[in-house]
C-alpha cells in the first residue's frame, strides 16, 4: 500500500495539499498542533496513488510519500 507520512507539527493547515490531491484524500484534522493549527490528515489511504502532488505543493515540507513496489508480474 502506498503511504503518506505527515509531520503534523510542521503543518500550518494552509490546505494547499487538499486541492492538489486529485483523489481528495486529505483533510484538516480537528487536532491542534503546537503552533495552534489543525494539521492535515489522510483518509482512504489505500486509494493514494503516491503521485506526490501533495508533497510537491506543501510549503512546509510536511509530507513524505512512499510507493509500494509491487512484485513484478511474470514476463
Amino acid at each position, binding site marked *: 500500500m502506498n503511504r503518506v507520512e505527515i509531520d503534523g507539527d510542521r503543518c*500550518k493547515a494552509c490546505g494547499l495539499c487538499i486541492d492538489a490531491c486529485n483523489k481528495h484524500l486529505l483533510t484538516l484534522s480537528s487536532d491542534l498542533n503546537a*503552533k*495552534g*493549527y489543525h494539521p492535515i490528515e489522510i483518509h482512504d489511504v489505500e486509494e493514494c496513488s503516491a503521485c506526490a502532488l501533495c508533497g510537491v505543493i506543501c510549503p512546509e515540507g510536511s509530507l513524505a510519500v512512499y510507493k509500494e513496489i509491487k512484485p513484478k508480474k511474470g514476463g
Partner: protein
Amino acid sequence: MATQDVVMAGFGGQGLMAIGKILAKAAMEEGKNVTWMPSYGPEMRGGTANCVVIIDDDPIGSPVVKRTQAAVVMNKQSIDKFEPTVADHGLLVINTSLIDRKAARDDLKVVYVAANEIAESEGGAKAANMVMLGAYLGVTGATKPETLEHAIEATFAGKRGNLGDINVRAFRKGLEVGLAARG
C-alpha cells in the same frame, strides 16, 4: 483609582490589540491619560502579540511595565508568559476556550471565561476578544461600560454588516461574567 494597567496577550489575529485600543479610547473619552503599547514577539505571525494599556489621572511615565495589575490572556503561550508578571494579588482573565490549564498562582484574582464559545453563541467566534474585554471591565471597572460600548460602536461604525452589534453583545456577555466574578 490612580493607575490601571493591563497586558492583553494572545495569538496574532485574536484581536488583542483591538480591545486594548478600545479600552484606551474609552478611558480617553472619560478624560483620562492613557497609553497603549503593542509588543510583537520575535516570532513570526502565529506568534504571541500583546499590548499594554495604562490609564491614569496623571501624566503617564513609562508606557511599558514589567508587572501589570492585570493580564488578559487568550492562548497558552500568553498565560505561561504573563501569569508570572502580574503584580501581587492582581487579576488574571483566562480564555478557557483555548487555555486548558488553571492559574498556577494562588494570590491572584482569576476569572475564567469561555470566550470563544460565548462569542459563537452571540453570532461570531471572532468576537471572543470582546468577551474578554467585557470580563476585564466587569472586574476592574476601569471605565464605565457605556463609554466602552460607545468605543466599540465607533470602532465598527462604517464596517460592513452588523459587526458592531455582535461585538457589543459579546462584550456585554463578558461584562456579566466579570461583574459576577467581582462579587
